[in-house]
């Protein structure tokens, strides 16, 4: 009996060691960024420790990072709300309804994922510029929403498939309208799936760079990734600012998802788990 306890002890040790390795691998690079952001530019890569300083953070906030942070928050939140709303509507119909062309339409939603984004930038720029939507919230929010929609629909459809159709039918028999069924019955159950989808979408929009670069040239409109890239010059790069900027770009998403992560976990179970 003691040998099996010994085996279990070894097993526990191994598991915890493996966990520790995973933690180290995941955290070390990010910790390095954070640590570097508190170094002076001169000492940053020198390997020697010259004391901590907040100078880099002060510098980037004086260069407009406050505004960039605000813009990123506004744009990404709005884009994700729109895309999730629109995707929920579409996902419900794809999952619950039979109609002509359903197969074709569903596939066409996904076709948006097929392209390298880089070839979308130039034509979209020309189009939006003609419509006067450059350097404006509506223009970029529309684009980010459109980027988030394809896989949002995909994930939500998968999640909806795990919710039995009988639920809807029971509600219909009780006299509920289509819309009541969606918002009062299905939506609440779907919430974890929606939270998961929203998370993915938000992270996607948050670090998006190519479209923001083309659409937002006004300092007052820029997002965090743009702010970060502006510290790369032709003959020099402001590494301290880059590190601080990286930390500022990474932290908000962590802060946002800390409270959500429990809901996130149960929602992620979807994909396409069939009953």
């Amino acid at each position, binding site marked *: 009996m003691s040998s099996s306890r010994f085996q279990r002890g070894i097993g*526990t040790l191994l*598991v*915890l060691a493996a*966990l520790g390795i*995973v*933690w180290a*691998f*995941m955290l*070390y*690079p*990010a910790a*390095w*960024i954070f640590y570097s952001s508190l170094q002076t530019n001169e000492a940053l*890569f020198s*390997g020697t420790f010259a004391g901590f300083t907040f100078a880099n953070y002060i510098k980037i906030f004086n260069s407009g990072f406050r505004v960039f942070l605000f813009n990123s928050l506004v744009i990404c939140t709005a884009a994700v709300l729109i895309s999730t709303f*629109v995707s929920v*509507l*579409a996902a419900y*119909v794809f999952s619950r309804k039979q*109609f002509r062309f*359903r*197969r074709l*339409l569903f*596939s066409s939603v*996904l076709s948006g994922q*097929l*392209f*390298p984004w*880089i*070839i*979308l930038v*130039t034509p*979209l720029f*020309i*189009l939006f510029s003609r419509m006067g939507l450059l350097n404006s919230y509506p223009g970029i929010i529309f*684009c980010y929403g*459109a980027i988030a*929609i394809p*896989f949002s*629909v995909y*994930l939500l*459809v998968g999640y909806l*498939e795990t919710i039995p159709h009988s639920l809807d039918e029971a509600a219909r028999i009780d006299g509920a309208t289509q819309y009541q069924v969606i918002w009062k019955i299905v939506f609440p159950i779907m919430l974890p799936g929606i939270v998961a989808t929203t998370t*993915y979408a938000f*992270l996607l929009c*948050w*670090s998006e760079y190519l479209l923001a670069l083309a659409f937002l040239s006004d300092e007052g409109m820029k997002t965090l990734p743009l702010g*970060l890239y502006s510290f790369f010059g032709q003959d020099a790069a402001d590494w301290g600012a880059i590190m601080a900027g*990286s930390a500022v770009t*990474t932290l908000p998403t962590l802060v946002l*998802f*800390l409270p959500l992560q429990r809901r996130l*976990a*149960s929602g*992620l*179970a979807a*994909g*396409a*788990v*069939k009953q």
Partner: protein
Amino acid sequence: MGHRMKGERRFVVTMLAPIFLILICFYLYPTAFNFYNSLTDLSLLGLRRGGSFIGLGNYVKLLASADFYRVLWNTAIWLTAVSVALRVVLGFGVALLLNSETVRQYRLVTLSRLILLVPWATPPVVAVIVFRWLLDQRLGVVNRMLMGLGIIDLPIAFFGDVHWVWPSVITIIVWNTLPMVSLTFLAALQSLPEELIEAAKVDGATGAQRIRHIILPHLRPTIIVITLLSTFWTFNNFLYVWLTTGGGPGSYTNVIATDIYIKAFIEYHLGFSSAIGVFAALLMAAFALVYLRVVARREFQEIL
């Protein structure tokens, strides 16, 4: 009956209208733009005056260039297949680890999930900067550690040596994208009813057998979806390769997205780069078709 049908159709149309309006605006016009341009010799500097029509000339040149096949190989195998496979396998392993009895016993699941969020939240450019420094030949901590442990005598040029460059780029990608995969699998694992596992244990099933016969089948749909999405995103990815090696040394790590960038924004051949883009999209479409028909037939029977 007829009245209900019409109401149904109206409902469907109302629900689908917003999404297709957005998608048409956003994807259809650029797609048409690129498709048209792929048939011209448009130059980046000539956007105003347009390019002249040359039919399938770009496509012929593309398929005839030996470089393109190497680019395709790099993109399909190194960039996509290997990194997606690693992500799925390692992600599965990490999920199992996090769901294990020991970890749950010590209440480390929540903390682990939070730690996993960190790489996911890190923007790709930041991930590249860090790893380029960590893996530097002379000053990087990884080389110093390896030499200190006696594993190697001379430092490895992780990004300069062709034997190491792809594994290094893939490491960055895996670091940045493993969390998403892992957390998805973890959630699916947590939705697996405990009784099934218990019953199997009582029946004397080993860990490996439990994985093969209970866990994997339960996770199959999730694995299929994640693999498909990851493949799409990685195949078309630009930043990881561009910021790390620029497609080099030489053209060793050139992939489709970097090739498009070079042709469009460095060589100004906007028409030709559109042809590459269209070709890449067709490839992905073909892949998706085959994948969904063959691999995911059961899961998506209803919808497709």
